[in-house]
């Protein structure tokens, strides 16, 4: 049977349960798709034998009749997740050859549900980037191309390999992580759905840390329903992550009624940027119309501190990264620099890190060290923490006024070409996160939904921002938007 790799999780689940297909058949189709996908550079490690073993176990479980939703579903795993015995490098040379002796909580939950691992997915180094170009493996490539062009486009970042793999049907779904937009921006660039849950909804244990107060793992899938199913499997309290929330997790899939009558949806005026492409304006207005037609009330809202979100983020995230990445010292794992005669441990630390970290990671670690250093801590770090309080309060005020969710564009543009930003100022690349980064700073859930194509035939997405812990309601609104938009386009297979 061919084409099984193009199934959604929901359809595959039904076919597996009805015995129309087996998990082994489904996995073989995905393994074949992965094997033929090298031009996309989505996978950094392929694990086809492990996948088949897991698929056989899943078939046995399905035969017993009480299999969870993800039983037998083949997934790709972002390289940021520690997977026991399988290289987990955060796309960095400093973790070259690192094979964890333990399994992250998210992947443990997935394997306990009977899911199948196809391999590890490419990403920006330590999740620092918006185009996948900081990866030590070389950038993943977007399956989508501009009409009449064969120029390689970015799948976005940092979860670019995940986005390329889901969009190109190299898995049924994938894990991503989102610190400033790293799930939602690549999802928008590749025409898929990406969910960043409320901070604390999903355990961070075993996920290589970037900025711990902002990092959150989430699903990257072909449909909103698939994201709901996926989130059901990975959400919940974990004693090993002290910031994971000890609260009940609703059934996200059961919440997908598509009925959003009476919901109040806010459009923040600060997200209307000067020079925003007309296509993005139109996409946004069309999305608002779709929600209005589905019975929602559309209101204008204000998030006055929006413009300060990016500068605050680029103080806080590097500060946390400089602390988190201090552990890469060439002693316990990964790369260690070779020393000359007479050199000692200090040279070893500094050279190991110079050789192991790429330029963007080095830049952020140094910025972080600077903003945390004596004399500058109050002026930068402390001030950014205060601004973060104000950004969160902006959202609290809007939600207190009766708004249920906020609709914004997901990205300021469609996918750009790999290499196009090579000579640009680093700050210019940071602007990719302008619509997504506020959500991380405020700890809120957000989802990116594909709703249209631009004039060059590239996918564009809209973002819905929910109230804390209201992923179910947010996903239901996203489901209504998805139904109205009817986005079904796929990239033509060229790889």
């Amino acid at each position, binding site marked *: 049977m061919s084409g099984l790799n193009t199934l959604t999780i929901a359809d595959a689940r039904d076919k597996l349960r009805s015995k129309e297909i087996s998990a082994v058949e489904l996995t073989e189709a995905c393994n074949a798709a992965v094997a033929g996908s090298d031009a996309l550079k989505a996978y950094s490690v392929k694990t086809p034998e492990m996948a088949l073993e897991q698929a056989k176990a899943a078939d046995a479980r399905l035969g017993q009749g009480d299999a969870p939703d993800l039983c037998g579903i083949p997934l790709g795993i972002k390289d940021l997740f520690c997977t026991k015995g399988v290289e987990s490098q955060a796309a960095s040379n400093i973790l070259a050859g*690192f*094979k*964890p*002796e*333990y399994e992250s909580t998210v992947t443990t939950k997935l394997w306990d549900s009977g899911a199948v691992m196809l391999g590890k997915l490419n990403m920006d180094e330590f999740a620092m980037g918006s185009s996948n170009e900081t990866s030590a493996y070389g950038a993943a490539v977007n399956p989508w191309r501009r009409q009449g062009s064969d120029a390689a486009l970015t799948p976005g970042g940092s979860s670019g390999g995940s986005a390329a793999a889901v969009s190109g049907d190299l898995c049924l779904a994938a894990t991503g992580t989102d610190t400033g937009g790293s799930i939602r921006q690549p999802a928008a660039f590749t025409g898929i759905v990406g969910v960043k849950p409320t*901070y*604390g909804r999903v355990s961070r244990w075993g996920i290589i840390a970037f900025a711990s*107060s902002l990092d959150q793992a989430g699903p990257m899938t072909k449909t909103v329903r698939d994201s709901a199913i996926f989130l059901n499997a990975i959400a919940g309290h974990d*004693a090993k992550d*002290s*910031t994971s*929330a*000890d609260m009940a997790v609703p059934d996200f899939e059961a919440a997908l009624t598509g009925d959003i009558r009476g919901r109040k949806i806010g459009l923040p005026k600060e997200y209307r940027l000067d020079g925003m492409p007309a296509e993005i304006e139109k996409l946004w207005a069309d999305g608002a119309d779709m929600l209005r037609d589905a019975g929602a009330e559309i209101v204008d809202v204000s998030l006055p*501190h929006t*413009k*300060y979100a*990016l*500068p*605050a983020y*680029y103080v806080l995230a590097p500060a946390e990264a400089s602390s988190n990445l201090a552990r890469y010292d*060439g*002693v*316990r*794992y990964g*790369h260690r620099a070779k020393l000359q005669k007479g*050199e*000692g*441990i200090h*040279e*070893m*630390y*500094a*050279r190991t*890190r*110079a050789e192991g*970290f790429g330029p963007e990671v*080095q*830049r952020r*670690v*140094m910025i*972080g*060290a*600077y903003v945390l*250093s004596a004399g*500058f801590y109050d*002026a*930068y770090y*402390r*001030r950014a*923490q*205060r*601004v*973060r*309080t*104000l950004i*969160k309060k902006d959202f609290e005020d809007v939600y207190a006024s009766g708004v249920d969710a906020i609709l914004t564009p997901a990205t300021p543009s469609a996918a750009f070409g790999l290499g196009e930003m090579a000579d640009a100022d*680093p*700050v210019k690349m940071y602007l990719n996160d302008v619509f997504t980064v506020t959500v991380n*700073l405020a*700890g809120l859930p957000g989802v990116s939904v594909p709703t249209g194509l631009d004039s060059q035939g590239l996918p564009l997405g809209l973002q819905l921002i929910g109230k804390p812990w209201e992923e179910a309601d947010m996903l239901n609104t996203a489901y209504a938007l998805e139904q109205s938009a009817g986005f079904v386009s796929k990239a033509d297979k060229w790889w």
Partner: protein
Amino acid sequence: MSIDKDTARKVAHLARIEVPEDQLEALAGELNGILGFMEQLNEVDVDGVEPMTSVTPMRLKRRADVVTDGDQQDKILANAPDAREGFFAVPKVVE
């Protein structure tokens, strides 16, 4: 506030990243570009605003102060670039 070559050298040292002397000037320029972007934060009135330390109000859980894990020396050393006789090995620390 602006970063000169000496500050760049100091920052690189704080970060424990070896930067060749002839690249410090360029590094200072890059860092200044990013810090310039952050200067916008000075426009915000933050008087009386508490710095955020936890994005969701939560109290850290407590547990009994007992050993819950251990006896896995081999696993802990398995990825070390240099491990000998049950220890991480590093170059000489004290002359």
